[in-house]
């Protein structure tokens, strides 16, 4: 075995950890936490090795594993990573391990918490390493229920009750996935005749390239996928679950959800939507671009008037997903690599934000900006976290967000000049709400009521150190992740050129109006 089943280890180790924790007596909270940490550290190291050993010159799927699984459906336990999924996998592991650090002082029903957390992480990991749609679906839906239970038990009730937040989040995602499932079943059935059917992603791409999937079918199926993955990516107008959900969820869930889970939507739109249904993607691209602009601007406006820290970051993440969608909609290699890069960047930044908010909230039980004043006097380390994440969010050069965002604008400007300019103006609003938040909550006069709370020390600074490290390093050396992403996007160039002249929804409308005018 050349690759020693590296990806299987990454995928299954958290599940193993969850099983061991399930069998540990619940009084032994320390051992439970150590097991959970161990179950995350090991896959993190393996992922790091995989990341470093990945050959960007060769590109394509590497570290592949293939075991036929359900032969009558054409399902195989097939794993692999390429330039698209590897950065996402790395992101998952970074945030996974940080979320364990952030939950270190979780004293309420510790055992159940870590079992669910590890299952959640395993599910997210699986979606990125799966090369088979069935396995992808299995892992994707695996995460929904643990999240619900976690919000229900460990969530917080502020503006909306946590029960409401949990069920809203769950229902939105599940309704989206109903559309997506119909789309996927339709693709599965249309790609090959009976007897040859398969869920293998590469074979589905091949089928599309051979022309088995008609243009009309692609347009229809892509719409279904867009509904499903779009609502996961909090695409306007399906975004409203996101701020409420993050506000109600416990810190670790907010981190994972905003950091990686949401990105499954964007990842799947590229991997499944664009690669299997290129004509469909091209058809709907203008609509996506308009919605992306709405995402950026509308969510940024709303973030301006929010008081609750988690709502500000929740809307901010909706706004940032607009950039990802814009990069997708422009459908050229530059903008696409920007979109993927932005997903990674935003993941690290958002989870840093949520971990710091979580720390403040656990101590002070306050999240509202007017009530939190001058925290930097008492909590300099936490304030540093806020500053780093905030400046990254604004797109300060030298931090992780700058390069991907810039790449997206470079890529999309040529395609949608007006929309791009409007979307870029979102940066101004981002600066407004982020700086306002930092100025009020972090700086300002010292308030005595916070004197009794101590700063993050020792182990509590782990999320800051960990995420801050990547935030800066990847900002200074963006090639570390943009290079890998480019190796995944570049092979798509011929396909993207081929669909450049394919009809879009705009053409369809013009044609329809033209015919209508003729009849008139």
């Amino acid at each position, binding site marked *: 075995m050349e690759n020693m089943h590296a990806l299987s280890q990454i995928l299954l180790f958290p599940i193993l950890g969850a099983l061991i924790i399930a069998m540990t007596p619940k009084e032994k909270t320390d051992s439970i936490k150590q097991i959970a940490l161990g179950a995350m550290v090991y896959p993190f190291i393996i992922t790091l090795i995989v990341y470093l050993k990945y050959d960007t010159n060769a590109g394509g799927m590497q570290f592949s594993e293939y075991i036929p*699984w359900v032969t009558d459906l054409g399902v195989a336990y097939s794993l692999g990573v390429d330039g698209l999924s590897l950065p996402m996998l790395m992101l998952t592991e970074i945030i996974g391990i940080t979320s364990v650090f952030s939950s270190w002082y979780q004293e309420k029903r510790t055992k159940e918490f870590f079992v669910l957390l590890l299952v959640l992480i395993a599910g997210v990991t699986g979606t990125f390493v799966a090369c088979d749609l069935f396995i992808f679906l299995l892992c994707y839906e695996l995460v929904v229920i643990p999240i619900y239970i976690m919000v229900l038990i460990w969530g917080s009730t502020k503006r909306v009750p946590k029960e409401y937040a949990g069920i809203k989040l769950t229902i939105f995602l599940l309704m989206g996935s109903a559309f997506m499932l119909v789309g996927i079943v339709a693709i599965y059935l249309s790609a090959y005749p009976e007897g040859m059917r398969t869920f293998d992603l590469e074979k589905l791409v091949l089928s599309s390239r051979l022309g088995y999937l008609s243009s009309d079918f692609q347009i229809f199926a892509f719409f279904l996928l867009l509904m499903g993955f779009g609502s996961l990516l909090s695409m306007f107008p399906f975004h409203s679950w996101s701020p409420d959900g993050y506000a109600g969820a416990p810190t670790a869930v907010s981190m994972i959800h905003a950091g990686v889970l949401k990105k499954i939507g964007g990842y799947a739109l590229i991997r499944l939507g664009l690669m299997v249904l290129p004509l469909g993607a091209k058809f709907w691209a203008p609509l996506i671009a308009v919605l992306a602009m709405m995402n950026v601007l509308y969510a940024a406006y709303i973030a301006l008037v929010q008081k609750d820290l988690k709502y500000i970051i929740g809307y901010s993440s909706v706004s940032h997903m607009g950039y990802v969608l814009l990069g997708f909609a422009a459908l050229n290699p530059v903008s696409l690599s920007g979109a993927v890069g932005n997903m990674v960047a935003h993941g690290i930044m958002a989870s840093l934000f949520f971990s710091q908010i979580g720390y403040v909230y656990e101590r002070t039980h306050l999240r509202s900006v007017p009530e939190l004043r001058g925290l930097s006097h008492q909590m300099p380390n936490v304030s540093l976290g806020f500053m780093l994440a905030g400046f990254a969010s604004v797109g300060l050069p030298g931090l992780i967000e700058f390069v991907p965002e810039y790449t997206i604008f470079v890529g999309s400007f040529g395609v949608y000049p007006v929309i791009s300019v409007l979307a870029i103006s979102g940066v101004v609003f981002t600066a407004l709400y982020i700086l306002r938040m930092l100025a009020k909550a972090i700086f300002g006069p010292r308030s005595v009521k916070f004197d009794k709370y101590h700063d993050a020390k020792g182990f509590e600074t782990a999320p800051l150190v960990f995420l801050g490290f990547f935030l800066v390093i990847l900002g200074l050396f963006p090639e570390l992740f943009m290079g890998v992403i480019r190796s995944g996007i570049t092979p798509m160039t011929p396909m993207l050129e081929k669909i450049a002249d394919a009809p879009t929804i705009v053409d369809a409308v013009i044609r329809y109006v033209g015919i209508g005018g003729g009849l008139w």
Partner: protein
Amino acid sequence: MVNYLAVTTEVLLTAVLLSVIVYDIVVKDKRYRKMLPALAGVGISLSAIVTIGVFNDAGTQSFPGSLFVLDNFAVYFKNLFCFAVTLTLCFSSDYIMEQTSHPGEFIGLCVSALLGMCIMASANDFITAFIGLELMTVSFYVLAALAKDKGRAGEASVKYLLVGAASTAIMLYGISLVYGAGGSMIFSEMKNNVHLFYGVGVAGVSMVIIGFFFKLSVVPFHMWAPDVYQGAPLPVTCLLAMGSKAAAIAMFMRVLYTAFPILANYWLPMLAFFSAVCMVAGNIMALRQTDVKRMLAYSSIAQAGYMMAGIVAADAAGMKAVMFYIQLYMIANIGAFAVLAAVEPKWGGTTHAHIAGLAQSAPLLAAVMTVSLLSMAGIPPTAGFAGKIYLFSAVVDKGYLWLAFVGFVMSMISVYYYLMVTKAMYRDLTDFEAETAAQPLEYSPVVKLVALCALVGTILLGVWPEPIAQLAGRAASAFMM
């Protein structure tokens, strides 16, 4: 020569039935009486094993005049029924001995209902099928009434009897019309009978189908189901939800595919329509239920809708999907009811308020309940997901994309009410509740074993559906040839 091997299962089950009755009369010692459910379970499992042994893949065996056939299809279903009844007797043995007035009769009637189901799976003519159906239903009438001094059992059984009798009348009338038009009672002889196209024949076929709709509690013939499910003793509800439904589905498929294929253009759209109605109405009505038993009744209406969607596909793939789905539905049902059987006697009910805090008192049971309900909803990695993929890919393949669409959307809506149960079990308790509900719940090791089996089975079938799917596939393709 008469091939008596074809009726092995039925003969053995009759023997088990008689032994149960005799044992109940003869043995008076309390210690030995307690073993009655276990003994019945062993007898049933042995009959199932012998059935597999007797049947070889060589082909269909039939009783004189092909009134009764033993093919792959029948064997699959018979094993399912035996499996379901055995496990139900296992997890509810304490319940039966302590909560019902006549344990011996109760078990005997369960076996006779099982006998009826087995006859239904094998029947190849209307009279035999009718005998099986009635044997099963009449047993259930009595079973539903056996806890008559408790709550709503009386109402449940009377309601069930009246509606059941009415549906039987409709079906019998339909059968007589079909016989009048087609001139035969045997399914396979009616296959290509053009006389069914006469008005009388079409009317008869419709009435037979409506009779089945009653038994399957298809909307709008479902009114009896929630009250009966809620009022009947727990093991009976469990058997009604899966056993009686599975048997009706088995017989329904045989009737439709063997006797009435010539009218397929009539009944296929009708079935598709009612399947969609069932999925929508069953799930919507379940949304507001707070009693888990009653919720499961509405959910079983929706489940009937999913299974009917598979029948609409009308080919080997669809049939295989239905058979696979029934299997996983049974396992999920057994899991859910095993939990309820442990909770109800101790905590006095099955509403959301009664099961609050189960996650702390009995974490295993709460996990089994959650996983079983999610399997019914079709969330991976439980078996329900694989089942729905089989079902709806068969349906879409036949061009019913809208039906699959309704199915997926409704199954996502159904997650809401299943999650409400999860919420009740896992939520934080108020201080007042914490005093009463947070104590560990005592339950017998048998319940624990059955619950664990259901949990493992559900997840195993979900991540590795191949073995059962192949079994179902073989049975279906043999049938469809």
